[in-house]
């Protein structure tokens, strides 16, 4: 009998808790936004509590002025120290491990807008509890620009709309400028570039990836022929078979181990000293983030330095951060980003915040 009474009381408390959570969701869903999967969702006029559950998308929300609204994120200060240095407001957000968040946790945190990658199985559950959920994945430059527009529409602020418009113009200008400078470069003069995401295990980026797109835009040819997609495992023998002219090492690629050293040293790019470290800032430049214009220009200068003598990578990086992130990087900080080094000192969470 006592157990029965306790059970009833527990169910009652749970119901009150859920009701309180539901009541906290703003009732005004005034605007319709169509996400990248083509689904139209009604979102609040001014989303105040955002859960961003795709690593790459957080940077876009931050750039569009939404740092203060993010209350749940999959990015962590240990993995993205520059993100937390440039946007310390992110420390107020709860860090979760991947997009598989319990829908009730969204209610508990009074989340009123969620961004997810397309592979998330929990979209139905999120929408089922009444939280507007937008798929924000993209795979190329065009997709990036469309996600920026969608995110600005979802945020609904004049600042977000203005930033998205200017960002589109800047991206197109960057692409056109680089294209113009490389227009006369023949196919044979375009180096074969291998982008190594990880050395141990050995993984590279093939066709149909954003890496392939920026290699092409920057005047190179992806050496990883026969491979499609991101971060594909290959053997060192396959790398020797490709024998690329240039190797670009991803920010967290590590070092070649003793077993592959001998073959590695025989590669044309290694012998010629054409192995470069990819920069990494608020997000890794080589992947799906808003720093893609920086990546295109950096890669173009790396592959064709004689055509981009006027391009100063440090100045370019500082300008970008000032314009789009409203953060004044020092010269030393810009150099650290270009060398894929973390900030010094590492960002620390203010007392009373989640991490």
């Amino acid at each position, binding site marked *: 009998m006592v157990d029965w009474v306790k059970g009833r009381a527990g169910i009652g408390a749970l119901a009150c808790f859920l009701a309180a959570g539901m009541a906290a969701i703003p009732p005004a869903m005034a605007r319709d936004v169509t996400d990248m999967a083509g689904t139209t969702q009604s979102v609040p006029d001014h989303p105040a509590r955002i859960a961003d559950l795709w*690593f790459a998308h957080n940077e876009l929300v931050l750039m569009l002025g939404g740092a203060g609204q993010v209350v749940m994120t999959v990015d962590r200060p240990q993995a993205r120290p520059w993100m937390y240095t440039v946007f310390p407001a992110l420390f107020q957000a709860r860090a979760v*491990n991947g997009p598989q968040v319990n829908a009730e946790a969204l209610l508990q945190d009074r989340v009123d807008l969620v961004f997810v990658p397309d592979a998330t199985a929990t979209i139905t559950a999120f929408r089922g509890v009444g939280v507007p959920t937008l798929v924000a994945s993209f795979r190329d430059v065009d997709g990036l620009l469309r996600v920026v527009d969608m995110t600005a529409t979802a945020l609904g602020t004049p600042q977000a709309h203005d930033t998205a418009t200017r960002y589109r113009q800047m991206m197109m200008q960057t692409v056109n400028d680089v294209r113009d400078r490389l227009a006369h470069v023949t196919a044979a003069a375009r180096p074969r570039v291998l982008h190594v995401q990880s050395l141990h295990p050995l993984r590279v980026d093939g066709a149909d990836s954003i890496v392939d797109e920026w290699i092409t835009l920057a005047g190179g040819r992806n050496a990883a022929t*026969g491979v499609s997609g991101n971060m594909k*495992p290959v053997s060192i023998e396959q790398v*020797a078979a490709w024998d690329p002219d240039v190797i670009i090492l991803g920010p967290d690629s590590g070092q070649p*181990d003793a077993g592959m050293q*001998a073959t590695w040293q025989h590669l044309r790019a290694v012998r010629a000293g054409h192995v470069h470290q990819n920069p990494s800032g608020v997000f890794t430049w080589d992947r799906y983030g808003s720093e893609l214009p920086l990546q295109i220009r950096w890669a173009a200068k790396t592959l064709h330095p004689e055509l981009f003598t006027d391009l100063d990578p440090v100045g370019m990086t500082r300008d970008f951060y000032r314009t789009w992130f409203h953060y004044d990087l020092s010269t030393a900080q810009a150099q650290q980003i270009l060398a894929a080094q973390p900030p010094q000192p590492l960002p620390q969470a203010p007392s009373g915040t989640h991490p």
Partner: protein
Amino acid sequence: MSLRALLVGGLCSGGLLVLVLVSACVGRLALPAGQVLQALLAPQATGGGAEMVHTILFGARLPRIGGAVCVGAALSVAGAAYQAVFRNPLVSPGLLGVLAGAGTGAALGIVWNLGHGGVVGLSFLGGLVAVGVGVGIAQVFDATSMMMLVFGGLISSALFTALLSLLKYVADPQNQLPDIVFWLLGSLTQVTPGALGVLAGPVVAGIVLLSACGRMLDGLAMGDEEARTLGIPVVALRYGVIGGATVLAALTVSVAGMIGWVGLVVPHVARLLVGPCNMRVLPVSACIGAMFLLACDDLARTLSAEEIPVGLIADLLGVVVFMAVLPLLRRGWRA
């Protein structure tokens, strides 16, 4: 030893040698077979692209070939030994939890960012700990019961599988989780000349020791009481063989990740060829297992530019081989 056993042994050894030579000649980088053979016979030769051939051959191909031979042989012998000890043809080296334990250890190493050496070490340790847990459970309840040993293994496997799932759940989904998944699929890409040097000695020693126990394992097949009347130390033999086979299996998993089916299927093929006598089954299993995994790895590294996990190919081919030998096995059971 019968003429048939000698013939099978000779054919298997010759076949393995031929397959090793063929494997050295195939790969993603087209190296002329003549140059490869020349580099094998005269490793010090220089000029005419010999350096590149030497680098690829000794830096990439031969360590993998050696790794495939060692891992295939070790898994097959471990499987044959487990089947003999448990008197059950459906048993594989994973019975007492060594695979789940090694997988958990490797995942822990990846989550803790311990680097390749740390992952390999923790994987090996995890395999041993998991079997230790299974055997410990059996010891607590009934040290002499084989059924209790199986139950102990089941519990240990379940426990370490759950821990592995937990580690996958807490792993960083962007970097660590893909590494765990790739490792669990099984691959020989990480076999370096140094790792092969460490692996080869214990594997050869383990295979020789277990093969030397073949006659006693035959006695064990008649039942515990009959074995004791023949003077066989049943419990000591059982735990000794389990220990040796476990170390072999844990070594392979720590170097190459999860590779299934080899330890289950290959001993059956060996029994079809040389009969049930374990003195012959164990070494012939080693030879066939080495050939099987070497063929699988040849496919894994040549079929596409992307590296296909060898565990995946071994699983697929293992099913095909098992289906092919199943009618022959049924005939054997009826007889």
